[in-house]
Structures are given as structure tokens and as C-alpha cells.
């Protein structure tokens, strides 16, 4: 009786998992299948049928005509500069806040706490005017500056981690005659590798997937990032599904590769960002 009950339970467990996995995978899988079909093949076969041969010409069209190389280049540039900025500014800020006491410390922290409540998308109406007044509209710096300016999460991650680095480390360096700058560079920074990886992953995914900021602040076709390059497929390729599908796969592929190689770090990073 007990053994019987157990097998039914096991059966349902795996049935649910298979259903969940199918729902998660099938919408992406059909995109993958469609991306290899020629236009006539696409129109004459069903979405679930396999392509007759592996034809990469849609990928070529998507990549070349869709200016996806420009997209990758700009996305990478924004990613690289934003990350250097986030890591440097965030770690230095957290160091000053965590290790020193000063009069404005509490008000500053309160400002950062309250800022977390403001949904970024609602203030775009006014942020646009500010970016415009700074002369950053249609410049790559608009998105970079916004990435840096609205980043509270990395600061929190650094602060949390700094709590765990004993002050005695600083003190012994201090007794050896190091100044505070040296303490920061030589003692603290090397110990912040773990939160840096976390921030790199969370912000990396965020920047790669960011659609709204580039869309609003950098309409110049030369400043396309990967999201806006893909979004632009909506017009000219309106009915040319195979090329659009190839574009979607091109955008997904890097994320899939990163996910497969860094799975553990990604899980920890995403889970850590909500604490």
C-alpha cells in the first residue's frame, strides 16, 4: 500500500516537472526551428515541423541587415564602462560608509534607502529633460550615467559584505603605517571579489536586457544596443518571420552560454540581490 502510494506520488512529481519544462522550453524551441526555414518553407509548413536543412542565411540577414554587430558593440561598451564605474564607485562608497562615522552618514543612507522605493520608469518623464539639458541625449553616456545613477543594489551588496570583513585587518595595516587609501586598495578591494562577481552578473544581465533607456535616450541608429536592434525588426521585417526568429536566437544565445557556464554564480547573485 505504502509503496504503491509512493509511485503515484513520484509519477505526478515528474509529470508536473515535465509539463513545467515543456511550457518553459517549447515557446523558445519553435523559434529555434523556425529560424532555419526559408520563407516559402516557413509558409508551407507548420510551426512544429523540423526545418528541411540547417540553413543559416536568415542568421546572416538578421546579423548584417539588422545591424546586430553595432548592437553588440554598443551593448558591450555600455556594459564595460558601467561596470568599471559601478564597482569602483560602489566599493569606495561602501568602504567610507562602513568604516567611518561622520555627521551626514545617516541622512545619506536614508536618501539611498528611500530612492529604492522610486520606480525608475515613473520618473523618466522628468529624467528625460535632465539628460537633454546635460547635452547627453543621443550619446552613449546617457545610458551609462543612468546605469550609475540609479544603482542602489550594488551599494547594498558591498555594504553587506564589508560587514563581514573584520576591522582588525584594517587596524593591523594601519599599525604597519599604511594610509587609508592603501588600506582600501590593498586590504579591502582584494577581499571584495565575491560581491563584485555577484554585481557583475546581476548588473550584466540587467544591462544586456535593458530596453527602455537605450530606446528613449539613444534613437540614433548608430547607437543601437542589442535590445533596440532587435526591436527595430518590428518595422521592416514585419512579416518576414524567419529573419526575426533568427534575430531572437542571436540575442538569446550569449545569455544561454553565460547561464550554462556560470549557473551557480547566477543563482547566488539573483537570490542575493533580494535579501
Amino acid at each position, binding site marked *: 500500500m505504502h509503496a504503491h502510494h509512493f509511485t503515484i506520488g513520484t509519477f505526478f512529481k515528474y509529470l508536473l516537472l515535465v509539463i513545467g519544462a515543456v511550457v*518553459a522550453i517549447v515557446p523558445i524551441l519553435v523559434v529555434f526551428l523556425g529560424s532555419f526555414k526559408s520563407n516559402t518553407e516557413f509558409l508551407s509548413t507548420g510551426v*512544429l515541423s523540423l526545418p528541411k536543412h540547417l540553413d543559416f542565411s536568415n542568421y546572416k540577414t538578421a546579423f548584417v541587415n539588422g545591424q546586430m554587430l553595432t548592437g553588440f558593440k554598443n551593448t558591450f561598451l555600455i556594459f564595460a564602462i558601467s561596470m568599471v564605474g559601478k564597482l569602483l564607485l560602489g566599493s569606495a*562608497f561602501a568602504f567610507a560608509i562602513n568604516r567611518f562615522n561622520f555627521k551626514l552618514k545617516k541622512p545619506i543612507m536614508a536618501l539611498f534607502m528611500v530612492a529604492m*522605493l*522610486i520606480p525608475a520608469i*515613473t520618473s523618466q518623464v522628468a529624467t528625460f529633460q535632465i539628460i537633454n539639458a546635460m547635452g547627453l541625449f543621443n550619446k552613449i553616456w546617457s545610458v551609462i550615467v543612468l546605469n550609475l545613477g540609479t544603482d542602489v543594489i550594488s551599494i547594498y551588496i558591498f555594504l553587506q559584505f564589508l560587514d563581514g570583513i573584520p576591522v582588525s585587518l584594517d587596524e593591523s595595516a594601519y599599525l604597519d603605517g599604511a594610509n587609508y587609501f592603501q588600506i582600501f586598495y590593498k586590504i579591502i578591494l582584494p577581499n571584495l571579489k565575491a560581491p563584485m562577481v555577484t554585481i557583475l552578473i546581476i548588473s550584466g544581465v540587467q544591462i544586456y536586457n535593458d530596453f527602455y533607456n537605450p530606446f528613449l535616450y539613444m534613437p540614433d541608429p548608430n547607437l543601437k544596443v542589442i535590445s533596440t536592434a532587435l526591436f527595430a525588426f518590428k518595422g521592416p521585417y514585419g512579416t518576414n518571420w524567419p529573419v526575426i526568429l533568427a534575430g531572437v536566437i542571436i540575442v538569446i544565445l550569449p545569455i544561454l552560454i553565460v547561464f550554462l557556464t556560470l*549557473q551557480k554564480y547566477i543563482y547566488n547573485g539573483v537570490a542575493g540581490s533580494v535579501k
Partner: protein
Amino acid sequence: MKAIRFDYRTQKRLIIVLFTIIPVALLLVFSYYPLVKMVQYSLTNWDGFSPDSKFVGLANYKTIFTDPTYFSVFRTSLYYFVATFFQLGFALLFATILSFKVKFANFWKGVLFFPYLLNGVAIGFIFLYFYKQHGTLDTLLSFIGLKSQIHLWLGDRSINNISLAFTSIWRYTGFNFLIFLGAIQSVNPEVYEAAEMDGANRWNQFRFIILPSIKEIVFLNIILGVSGSLSVFDIPYIMTSGSNGTNTFVIQTIDTAFKYNKLGLASAMAIILLLIVVVVTVLQRIFTREKASR
């Protein structure tokens, strides 16, 4: 020696100023200054570019609450709010299953989580393809003999918001799943072993061990669902541009500002949304803090 090195008091001051000034300046310019500006704009009829504008008092706020074209979009949020419960339900279901011994656990975990990492524009296209005529959904329905159930999934007003809300469930379930799984796994495994020895079945283990350990985080996620469903933007914007009754409050705000050039009115809308989100979040903070201090 002393001439080369600053004394520590000066050093300390220098570090505090140098290390905090840029983040604080960025925060003020890009988080607080827009707020001030938005309140200011919301009391005018500014179009966003002409040199002058007129002070109109609270007229913009009045328009939003009286003109149904602006206020009715809140109705759309309800679909996404209801979807939040399905999303949390599925996430909890899979987190519970995977917290027990399962074959290929890493594979299931990865597959269920992966959609969360995808680019919003890519998801938009994936589901445009999924819902299009003779697309994936139609094909699957004909396959199982439900051809009569086929709709214009994104055009038909009776169902398009549900189609979009499902897309949102598909995208975010993995995130909640991962958070729940983490919370469940933080329970000491010995507790389960002890329960099993006492003869507790899976349902009782769920009710008396798993559920209490994640009650707080489920509640937190429901609250987040309120602000989340009010600020839905990219999925409906990319997939339907907010047409046929799929307009959300944020799309409406953005269009009012940048398409119809009514920046004053749009600012008032943003302020209202902001107030709702802040009130909900503060209530949640008070509630969870009370619980924690009890």
C-alpha cells in the same frame, strides 16, 4: 615623515568626501531632482519643448481622475495582479517539488529559471510568434482537437490581456521559484529527517515545515506584485503597443509625455503612480517589521 603623509584626521575627511561625493551627486541628480521637477511640471500644461508654459494648478490631476481614458487603464493592472497569484502558485509548486529528492534536479531548476534571464524584446517576439495566427498555440490546440477554442489571442479584447499576463507569468515564475527554493532549502535538513521518522507524509511536511518557513517571503512577493502590476511596461509595449485595451498606466504615461507632448499631464500621472507604489511599499515594510519585532 609627517610632511609626506597626511595625518589620519585629514585623511579620513578626504576619503569620506572623495568616496561618497560622486554616488551622492548621481543619486540627487537622477533620483531626487526628477521628482522635484515632476511635481513642478505636473502643475503646468508644459508640452516638453516650448520655452513657456502655464501654471494650471491641480487641473492635470483632476483630468486623470475624471477622464475615463486615463483612469480606466488601471483596470488592465488587475489582470497582471491576478497573474501574480498564479505565478507565485507555480513557483511554490516547483520549489516544493525540487526541495525533495528528484532526478536531474539541476536540469529542472535551470529550465524553469532560464526564461527570467531573457531579454524583454526577445520575449516579446517569442510570444508574438506563439500567439500569432497559425502560430504555436493555434497549432497545439488543433493538435489536441480544440480548434474551436482558437482566438485572435492578441487582438480579441476578451482575451488579449490574459495572453499578455500569461507571458508575464512565463517570464517571472523562474525568479520567484528560485527565491522560494532558497528559502525552503535554508531549513535544516535534519528537520525533514525527524519529520519523516515521525511518519509525516509529504503533505504534512509541506504544511508544517515548508509553508511556515516561507510565509513571510510569499507575503512579501504578493505585495511586490501590487507595485509590479501597476508598473507593467515592456511586454505589452513591445507586443501590442498598448492597443485594443491592453494599455497599461505606464504606457499611457509615456505616450502622454512623448507621443502627445503633454508633459504636465504625464508628470501628474507619474506622481500618482509613485504615490501608490510608495504607500504600498511602506505598508509592507511596517507590516513585516511588526511581525519581526513580535
